[in-house]
């Protein structure tokens, strides 16, 4: 369980105080898949960075239950692979030194197998396609044994075909391993397609919490998902969107 209470983050931008997060409270149950959607600049990425410990909050608190000291896995929008390391060593970045050698190798091997890149362990990042590189980033987050994985628009820079493939793979991984996933995206359809729950953000606040009670695999033209999409868009824009069906 990951809990956030009254989280605030204020930046000083050219002498003006800007509240990127303005009192966010939420709870992510263990093994849940939650998406956060909203306009650019609404505070989604700031929320993720605070949860990952990359920035300190101005106010509020973040709490993890059953914290055994594992790092929180993070997948960024871009793969952020170390160009001097092989695929295997990139995935091992957070494992080497924390586990004994054989256990670390097993962990890395199974993470690579999970994302379908077992045969590319010796490849260098510049030899991978964008989709493969993002798979390596997912494997790196999984290999550290994280129970919580934060994903910041991880498929945003990929083409539609690769994105759809990786979306399916992510759901399969989630169903197999059951990590707690917080998935930040500005793509409402993607949020409805993947998550059990969609949180809507606007101006640093959570303004809606939509349950998506549909089994996987889901179809993007499922009327229930279209209804979720319509509700989210209406919450953000204040006006209902016409549904094409």
């Amino acid at each position, binding site marked *: 369980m990951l809990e956030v209470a009254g989280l605030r983050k204020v930046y000083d931008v050219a002498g003006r105080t800007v509240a990127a997060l303005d009192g966010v409270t939420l709870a992510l149950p263990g093994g849940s898949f939650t998406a956060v959607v909203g306009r650019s600049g609404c505070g989604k990425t700031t929320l993720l960075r605070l949860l990952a410990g990359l920035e300190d909050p101005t106010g509020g608190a973040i709490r993890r239950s059953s914290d055994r000291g594992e790092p929180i*896995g*993070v997948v*960024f929008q871009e793969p*952020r692979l*170390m160009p001097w390391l092989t695929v295997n060593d990139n995935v091992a*970045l957070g494992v080497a030194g924390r586990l004994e050698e054989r256990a670390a190798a097993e962990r890395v091997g199974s993470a690579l197998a999970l994302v379908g890149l077992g045969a590319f362990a010796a490849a260098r990042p510049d030899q991978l396609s964008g989709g493969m590189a993002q798979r390596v980033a997912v494997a790196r987050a999984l290999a550290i044994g994280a129970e919580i994985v934060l994903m910041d628009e991880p498929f945003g820079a990929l083409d539609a075909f690769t994105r759809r493939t990786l979306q399916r793979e992510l759901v399969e991984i989630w169903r197999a391993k059951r990590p707690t996933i917080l998935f930040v995206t500005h793509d409402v359809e993607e949020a409805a397609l993947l998550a059990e729950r969609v949180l809507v953000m606007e101006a640093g606040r959570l303004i809606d919490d939509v349950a998506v009670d549909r089994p996987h695999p889901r179809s993007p033209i499922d009327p229930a998902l279209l209804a979720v999409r319509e509700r989210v868009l209406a919450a953000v824009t204040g006006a209902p969107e016409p549904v094409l069906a």
Partner: protein
Amino acid sequence: MIRIINSTRPWPGGRPGPARRPPLPFGPVVFAALVAAWWLASVLELAPPFLLPAPDVVFATARDLALDGTLFRHLQVSLLRIAAGFLGATAIALPLAVAFGLWPAFARSLDPLVEFLRHVPPLALIPLLILWLGIGEAQKLAVIILAAFFPIFLNAGTGIAQCDPKLVEVGRVCGLGRAAIVRRIVLPAALPAILVGLRLGFGYSWRALVGAELIAASSGLGYMIVNAENLARTDIVIVGILAIGLLGVALDRVGRILARRMAPWIRSELDLGRA
């Protein structure tokens, strides 16, 4: 007009394109042209042989100096000085660059001194170094260290400062500590800049060494050149210059091959460091 831009075979039904020619070896061609011009100038006696001996005279002198061991004795002395000075400069400059990158307060306090020393040419310090250290090896070592220090230090510092903060964030979310982030992320990320600094530093130390040997030495390539000048042996002067240039090119080539083998992900960055 239709033109095949890139293909491994002719367009179906089309005429085969012109065969790809390997690129001309312009480097050796330019070098050979210079030697030819030199030879022509000496044959036409555009300059007195005393000032510009013919290439065959110079090559004969080089052969004689090589066969009687004179050239290799001076070469060995210069190379040992270079090795000691360059390694000394590297051993001081790299840790200092890391310390500057990690502790801004430390960098701020030493920065004025470093900037002051950076603007003083090492050759201008030779008189002072002779007074302090004598005309022995210590003085030459100091000159080489001063010459090689700044390219290595400044490039390594730039590389460390320009390490992508996004990669450092990856280290943080992977649970790496500060020392592990420096060792596993910052230093490898800075390696291209460090290698450029090492190449520049090597070139600078080579120049400084010859300068130091020209002023006060009893051995080394610089001494061989200045001694030949005193004896009016222009051919030996040219042999010394050719030996310095060719050795520099050869050592630089070896350095680049080693760097490519050690760091295969680095490509064009290495070419920026031509000294």
